[in-house]
């Protein structure tokens, strides 16, 4: 299988959280992933996109989110969720379990913890008033299919 890249851009509304994780699941289907791998990818993407919708754009429904998906023939999937919102003040604090800036709205503060646990690598880059870029790397176990 050749290396592949698919990029999708959509407006930052909550309805698109589902769309984003469906697209990510569809992107990895050619690798014949396990149900567990698909669930982990869908969950991690859902967390990243929800963060952008809620925090980057303050649930305003304005702004866009870019979803870039890359795959290598060895089954390494890299998914980048990028927004152009307010950015994160303190990335280290944001990544800590139970951290949330909006406690009144029933947020769990577990988004980054789940992303970290469901992927092989998580990179968070952010610049104030410029935006945030979350990179999720997942190595699919494709050896059994070859």
């Amino acid at each position: 299988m050749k290396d592949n890249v698919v990029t999708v851009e959509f407006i930052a509304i909550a309805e698109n959280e589902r769309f984003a994780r469906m697209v990510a699941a569809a992107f990895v289907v050619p690798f014949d992933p396990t149900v567990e791998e698909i669930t982990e990818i869908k969950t991690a993407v859902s967390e990243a996109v929800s963060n952008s919708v809620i925090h980057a754009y303050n649930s305003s429904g304005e702004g866009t989110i870019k979803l870039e998906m890359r795959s290598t023939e060895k089954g390494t999937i890299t998914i980048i969720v990028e927004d152009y919102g307010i950015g994160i003040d303190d990335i280290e604090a944001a990544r800590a379990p139970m951290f949330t800036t909006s406690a009144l709205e029933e947020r769990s503060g577990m988004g980054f913890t789940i992303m970290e646990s469901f992927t092989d690598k998580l990179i968070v880059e952010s610049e104030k008033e410029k935006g945030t870029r979350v990179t999720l790397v997942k190595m699919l176990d494709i050896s059994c299919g070859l």
Partner: protein
Amino acid sequence: MQIEFEMSDDIITAILTGELDHHSALSIREDIDHAMQVYRAKNLILDFSSVSFADSSGIGMIMGRYKKVKEKDGCMMLCGCSVYMKRIFEMAGIFTIIEETEERGEAMRQLKERGEENER
């Protein structure tokens, strides 16, 4: 996501179907709070057996309902969580404060037992 309610004594069961994310959690929590108010229910069972997807929004939704149930001295239980949901919920320590069963009938039985104990 769809939601159905079943009432038995002072226990309301919310049967959730579909995908639970930030978007669907917004309306689901309002529906549950409204139903608990209308039926004057004290205890709550959340049935996840027909939920095909859940992310951390599920945690917030559960914890929010737990607080409301506790305010009325009620009890809350979860049932039918898939292995993936359990992984997420465990990360947040949900099962250390809210009990969970496989079957809805078992959750109902346990809640009724507790109610009888309290009356004694």
